[in-house]
């Protein structure tokens, strides 16, 4: 279950080919490959975004992503999953994140892929800072991301909520 945090861009076709090859003889049993790519928008919360910088918590990031993939594999019958998340400075239209899941059937692959993204949004320690015409600003967490995670039974960030006062 590969997890990578990197400044470089990624190539969907190449990553899928590597994942399939890594299955060896079982590659012939793969019937479904689902993927998601997140990209940089040029507008957010009403402001133009010229660039963004992604900060993360080295060490914890990889641990969190591995935990997310382990959860996905325990919930759905998938053969493998991959997450690549970029850090550093990115510009509109750049790719930020790639999730790939593969298995025998599309239902499991789709669900696991969506679960991994929803989980990542609220549990993996990445932070975005945007450059807008009025200066730099840190992106605020969205309540809709907690709601998306909650549908999988994932608690909001911070566990019991006692350290999460002030959440919108």
């Amino acid at each position, binding site marked *: 279950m590969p997890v990578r945090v990197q400044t470089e861009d990624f190539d969907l076709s190449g990553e899928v080919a590597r994942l399939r090859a890594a299955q060896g003889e079982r590659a012939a049993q793969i019937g479904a490959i689902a993927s998601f790519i997140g990209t940089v928008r040029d507008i957010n919360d009403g402001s133009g975004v010229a660039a963004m910088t992604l900060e993360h918590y080295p060490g914890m990031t990889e641990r969190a992503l591995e935990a997310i993939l382990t959860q996905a594999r325990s919930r759905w019958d998938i053969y493998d999953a991959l997450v690549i998340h970029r850090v550093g400075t990115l510009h509109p239209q750049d790719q930020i994140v790639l999730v790939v899941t593969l298995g025998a059937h599309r239902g499991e692959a789709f669900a696991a892929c969506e679960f991994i993204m929803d989980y990542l949004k609220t549990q993996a320690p990445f*932070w*975005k800072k945007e450059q807008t015409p009025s200066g730099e600003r840190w992106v605020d967490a969205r309540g809709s991301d907690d709601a998306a995670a909650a549908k999988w039974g994932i608690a909001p960030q911070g566990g*019991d909520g*006692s350290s999460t006062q002030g*959440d919108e």
Partner: protein
Amino acid sequence: MAIKLLFFAGLREAVGSAGESLALPAAVATVGELRAHLAARGGKWAEHFAATRNVRAALNQDMVASGAVIKDGDEVAFFPPVTGG
């Protein structure tokens, strides 16, 4: 008891520090108590670690709630809600 403290993103900028080594008084046993201990420094610390602020914590690189118990040598990180993806 000595711990390693880390701060990230907007919180790192707000307190002007990426982290520090800190000797904890005996009264500080949990992540929540550590947060209050930092807020008691006053000024920008009081402002950004106030109970009303949206601050998350990780203990030894796992996201935890405020009741998590700290041990000698632990790594404790404080940061804003995450915004990756």
